[in-house]
């Protein structure tokens, strides 16, 4: 026990007695120790080493995050770029000038050296003065402090102890005298210092001025050099700043974040402010100069619209994930929710970043072709969103195909049913046509908008044929039996000419909303707005000339609720158009006949309806007692309810029926487990489900065994891939994320309402508004004949004029050269106001009261007349009674109307650069880059000339109001 060895060694055990037992059991026989110290040390050494390694590994693993690599790379590139800039700046330095200055500086220096003795004398004098100033000034300041105390003592005594106040006053006043003396000394010294400094400057001032001038020449290069040092202060300093633990102080590598209190990461049932850390890696996102840098440093491609501080969606206000989605707080590539745009990118990402799709991410980023869906979070109205063509197409499709008829959708609550009124079907169509139409609308015309309910993927088999025909017959007979036919207001006059009719249809503007047959693609612009009205193909096989005549002559007389505006056709023109439309027939269609009704099949369907609410046996008995007529009526009514025909059409008895489709208020946030994917082998995502559903609404019945009445009922609209994509975009974009109203302050209700009305009336079929639309232009070869662009409409026209024009566009002919005409939309006061407000709001123009009084001078009016003559405006523009000697087609708008129609300030902008406001306009520019091409008048002063133009236009030609001189 007493044997001690240094180093904590083991006391040598007695030699173990020979093992008595199975040695495999390894029973220790050595005295009072089980393990040897060396053995334990060995184990301890190994485990400690392991622990050290693992600890280092842990810290390295924790520290070495992906984003650091990007930040280092960005710093490196920034240094390289700054160095390149510096070289460029250095190269741009005017070396000769620098050398010349250097020489002058040298000369100045020589002169200074010559006066060294004097200079040093002045300098030492200045130094002495400064010393003296310091002590004198200090004495003054101290005296002031003492005085403040004494004054307080006196004031306090006056208030509380008036008898003893007097001595204190004396003390304070004495002090004040001292202070004034001190102040004088100080000021004297200040003057002396100033003088001496000036004296000194006379010796060395020139040198200093020259030096700073030379510094100015090389300033840019010098600054860039300093910037490089700031960016890269050397490996050691950077390393210390960013070392683990030390990096809590002021690291150069750090997680950047944008905190958005008002935009939420939308967790279920609660809202957490977003913290976007995207800029941790996307470091150049807000720097236009980095537009060609490689990812992740690339600048946002549209800094004018997004991210940029001056854009409508600045980064600090909106962040990134508000639009792009993804996990706001993540700083690792895959976890952030990046989603590749295509298979190639996916392969590249997997290779480069080890990309995987995080299935636990509720909102992975939107691929680029679906990013527009995010606009819907704030742009909640039903109108178009600028710069989002696919989204707008989706909205147009929803509006024209009337999805909201069967599905409750936000924004469409007030929109009327999209289909024609079927309460007067008997006066328009014949039953045979309707049956064939229901069986396959697109066989009648490929552009048919009516979806197909029968003969689809889940009811198209031969076993369904008799049943489908029975259903179609029942519905048709039911509708016609309920029809109340009013006689048509007038009969078509004879003598309608097909050729003239065609010319009219192609010129007056019908093609802004309608097309005849398939619409050819136009790379220059979209054409979907020309699907707003029904396609006119095969029209002759559908309706009679009488009906068409009444329709085009005055649509509202035939159907008061129609969207079709009045084209103000004369009776003869209407007859021509009707003749033309009647000539558009579909002979193949007319040749086919609809099959006879199979009563057994009808019985089967009728029985389904009879069975609801009663037993099978009762239903059988009831069926046996019914006549064919009764069966058809029962079945027809039941089918209208089952297929929800009333969602799009007015059908008597179903005016207040509830829509039959799934509610679509937040389809973009619908939980994945609420989708029935059936046995369809597609990726289980919302997007894929919607895409499959839109491409074939019955697809999820594949391989399912169902009774006929259990089959999916949504009809097939025959959407092509692009249309499917556009609708899916809307569906996935309608998410539950709530955006607080103050985040939408630029997006006023006026704009939303206006955009909604513009979409509802399809204004963009003819006009370009907010940079989009004008689909009709594809049918007009001559740009000069295009309907006007309304891009600056709000700034251009006076509210009162616009208001009355919108309501009565036929009153005056603004553009005599156009054959297309602005139709009468029967806008009511409220609608005209909505449009007026909208146009004013997008241009930030005042509304509705504006001051059109013009302050001018007589010189300006004279100059205006001269300019007007020099520029020969009258060559094209009628101006009051001055009519140009030209064809009407070559005329420009009548300037006589300007005073009551246009806003004065707009006229100046317009004359300055017409192409900027209306690209393609015939109006020539007389100012190139703001420089007048009309010298000689007002000395070529551009603003003056523009005012002169305006004044002439409003006051001389028009009868505008001249402001009182003041």
């Amino acid at each position, binding site marked *: 026990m007493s044997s001690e060895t240094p180093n*904590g060694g083991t006391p040598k055990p007695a030699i173990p007695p020979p093992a008595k037992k199975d040695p495999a059991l390894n029973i220790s026989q050595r005295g009072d120790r089980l393990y040897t110290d060396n053995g334990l040390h060995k184990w301890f050494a190994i485990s400690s080493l392991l622990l050290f390694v693992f600890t280092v590994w842990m810290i390295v*693993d924790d520290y070495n995050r992906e984003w650091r690599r990007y930040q280092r790379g960005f710093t490196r590139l920034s240094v390289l770029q700054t160095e390149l800039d510096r070289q460029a700046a250095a190269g741009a330095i005017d070396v000769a000038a620098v050398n010349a200055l250097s020489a002058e500086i040298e000369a100045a220096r020589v002169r200074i050296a010559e006066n060294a003795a004097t200079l040093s004398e002045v300098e030492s004098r200045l130094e002495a003065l400064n010393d003296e100033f310091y002590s004198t000034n200090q004495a003054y300041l101290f005296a002031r402090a003492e005085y403040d105390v004494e004054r307080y003592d006196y004031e306090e005594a006056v208030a509380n102890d008036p008898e003893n106040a007097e001595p204190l006053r004396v003390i304070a006043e004495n002090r004040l005298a001292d202070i004034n003396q001190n102040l004088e000394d100080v000021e004297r010294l200040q003057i002396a210092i100033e003088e001496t400094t000036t004296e000194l400057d006379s010796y060395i001032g020139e040198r200093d001025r020259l030096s700073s001038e030379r510094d100015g020449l090389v300033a840019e290069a010098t600054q860039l050099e300093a910037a490089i040092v700031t960016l890269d202060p050397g490996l050691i300093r950077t390393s210390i700043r960013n070392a683990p633990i030390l990096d809590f102080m002021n690291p150069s590598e750090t997680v950047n974040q944008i905190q958005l209190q008002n935009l939420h990461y939308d967790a279920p049932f609660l*809202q*957490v402010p977003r*913290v976007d850390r995207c800029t941790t890696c996307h470091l150049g996102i807000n720097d236009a100069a980095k537009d060609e840098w490689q990812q992740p440093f690339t600048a946002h491609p549209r800094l004018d619209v997004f991210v940029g501080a001056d854009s409508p969606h600045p980064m600090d206000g909106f962040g990134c994930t508000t639009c792009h989605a993804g996990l706001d*707080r993540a700083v690792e590539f895959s976890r952030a929710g990046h989603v590749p745009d295509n298979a190639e990118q996916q392969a590249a990402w997997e290779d480069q970043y080890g990309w995987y799709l995080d299935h636990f991410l509720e909102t992975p980023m939107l691929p680029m072709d679906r990013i527009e869906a995010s606009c819907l979070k704030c742009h909640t109205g039903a109108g178009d969103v600028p710069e989002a063509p696919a989204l707008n197409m989706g909205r147009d499709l929803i509006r024209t195909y009337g999805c909201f008829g069967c599905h409750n959708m936000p924004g469409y609550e007030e929109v009327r049913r999209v289909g024609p009124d079927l309460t007067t079907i008997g006066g328009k169509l014949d039953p045979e046509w309707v049956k064939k139409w229901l069986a396959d609308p697109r066989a009648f015309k490929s552009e048919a908008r009516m979806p197909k309910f029968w003969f689809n993927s889940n009811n198209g088999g031969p076993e369904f044929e008799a049943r489908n025909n029975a259903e179609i017959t029942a519905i048709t007979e039911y509708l016609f039996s309920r029809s109340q036919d009013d006689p048509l207001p007038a009969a078509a006059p004879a003598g309608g000419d097909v050729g003239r009719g065609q010319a009219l249809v192609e010129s007056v503007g019908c093609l802004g909303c309608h097309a005849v047959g398939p619409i050819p693609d136009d790379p220059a612009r979209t054409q979907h707005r020309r699907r707003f009205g029904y396609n006119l193909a095969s029209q002759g096989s559908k309706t009679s000339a009488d009906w068409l005549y009444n329709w085009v002559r005055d649509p509202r007389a035939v159907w008061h609720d129609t969207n079709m505006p009045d084209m103000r056709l004369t009776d003869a023109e209407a007859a021509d158009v009707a003749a033309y439309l009647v000539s558009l027939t579909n002979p193949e269609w007319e040749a086919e006949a609809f099959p006879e009704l199979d009563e057994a099949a009808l019985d089967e369907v009728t029985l389904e309806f009879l069975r609801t609410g009663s037993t099978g046996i009762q239903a059988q008995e009831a069926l046996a007692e019914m006549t064919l007529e009764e069966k058809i009526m029962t079945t027809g009514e039941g089918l209208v309810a089952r297929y929800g025909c009333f969602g799009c059409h007015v059908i008597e008895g179903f005016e207040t029926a509830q829509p039959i489709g799934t509610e679509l208020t937040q389809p973009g946030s619908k939980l994945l487990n609420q989708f029935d994917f059936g046995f369809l082998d597609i990726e289980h995502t919302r997007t894929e489900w919607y895409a499959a559903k839109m491409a074939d609404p019955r697809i999820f019945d594949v391989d399912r065994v169902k009774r006929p009445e259990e089959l999916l009922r949504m009809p097939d609209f025959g959407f092509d891939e692009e249309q499917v994509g556009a609708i899916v975009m809307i569906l996935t974009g309608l998410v539950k994320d709530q955006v607080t109203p103050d985040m939408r302050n630029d997006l006023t209700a006026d704009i939303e309402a206006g955009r909604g009305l513009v979409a509802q009336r399809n204004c963009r079929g003819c006009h370009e508004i907010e940079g989009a639309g004008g689909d009709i232009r594809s049918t007009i070869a001559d740009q000069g004949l295009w309907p006007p662009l309304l891009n600056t409409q709000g700034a251009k026209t006076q509210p009162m004029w616009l208001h009355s024009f919108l309501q009565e566009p036929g009153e005056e002919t603004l553009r005599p050269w156009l054959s297309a005409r602005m139709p009468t939309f029967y806008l009511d006061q409220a609608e005209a106001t909505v449009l007026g407000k909208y146009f004013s709001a997008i241009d930030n123009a005042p509304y509705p009261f504006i001051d059109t009084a013009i302050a001018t001078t007589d010189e300006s009016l004279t100059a205006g007349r001269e300019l007007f003559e020099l520029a020969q405006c009258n060559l094209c523009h009628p101006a009051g009674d001055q009519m140009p000697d030209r064809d009407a087609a070559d005329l420009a708008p009548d300037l006589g109307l300007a005073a009551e129609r246009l806003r004065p300030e707009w006229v100046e902008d317009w004359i300055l650069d017409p192409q900027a406001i209306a690209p393609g306009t015939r109006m020539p520019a007389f100012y190139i880059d703001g420089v007048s091409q009309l010298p000689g008048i007002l000395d070529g002063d551009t603003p003056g000339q523009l005012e002169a133009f305006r004044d002439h236009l409003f006051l001389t030609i028009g009868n505008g109001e001249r402001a009182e001189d003041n």
Partner: protein
Amino acid sequence: MSQLKDLLSNLSPAKLGEAIQKSQIYRSVFRVGVPVSDRKRMLVMLGNVFLHLHPVKVRKSGIRLRFTWCMGGITFFLFLVLTFTGLLLMFYYRPTIEYAYVDIIDLREQVPLGIMREIHRWGAHAMVISVWLHMFRVFMTGSYKPPREFNWGVGVILLVLTLLLSFTGYLLPWDQLAMWAITVGSNMARATPFAGYEGPGANLLTLGENIPLISSTSDARFALLGGTRVGEMALLRFYVLHCVGLPLVAGFLMAVHFWRIRRDGGISGPL
């Protein structure tokens, strides 16, 4: 000069060490000194508040891994690890439904050494397993037999506490995994006889004819969750239990457990 030489010669590591060991400060802290002799080794065990949980001498078999599997010690050490990492995590975690989840994301994405969460979680799982295995070993060696009956009982409670600690902690990340695991787990409380509103006998507990005493807002599950579903109150309750309540109880019982091991004859062995 020579004094300086003496001083320098005293600066050799060995001498320096000796000097330090002789100093009053050292001796006041380490009463015994380096335990190189068996006597000192015993004194160390007696003099150290932590080490004196152990006896001075133990049975050889009692320190064999083959015999003890070291599971009890591992369990205790994991408890310490969890206390330490849990403390660090509390700095970054806010038990509200707004922030619970995003704080966990921050721990993953941004907090330096956020790996503490991994250590905490995996340590907790490991502790559940090690406590089972400890019980398994104690049973297989018959170590619950007299005089250790009571300590076995304490151990069973500690096992239950371990499971409850893990269960309460499971909710805190506030993700789907957490919420639904706790929902499933706590739904069973709904079926507590008499005390759960879907438990047998609950609808016998009425005042008069039809005023039920036990409803979905007054039953065992409601008491556990502070609501009718796993929500904000449940999160707070579980957080407080997880961080304060259960660890205190477990710590107290552990003290009893360890003390009774000593009192009942140390690590068990054949009598």
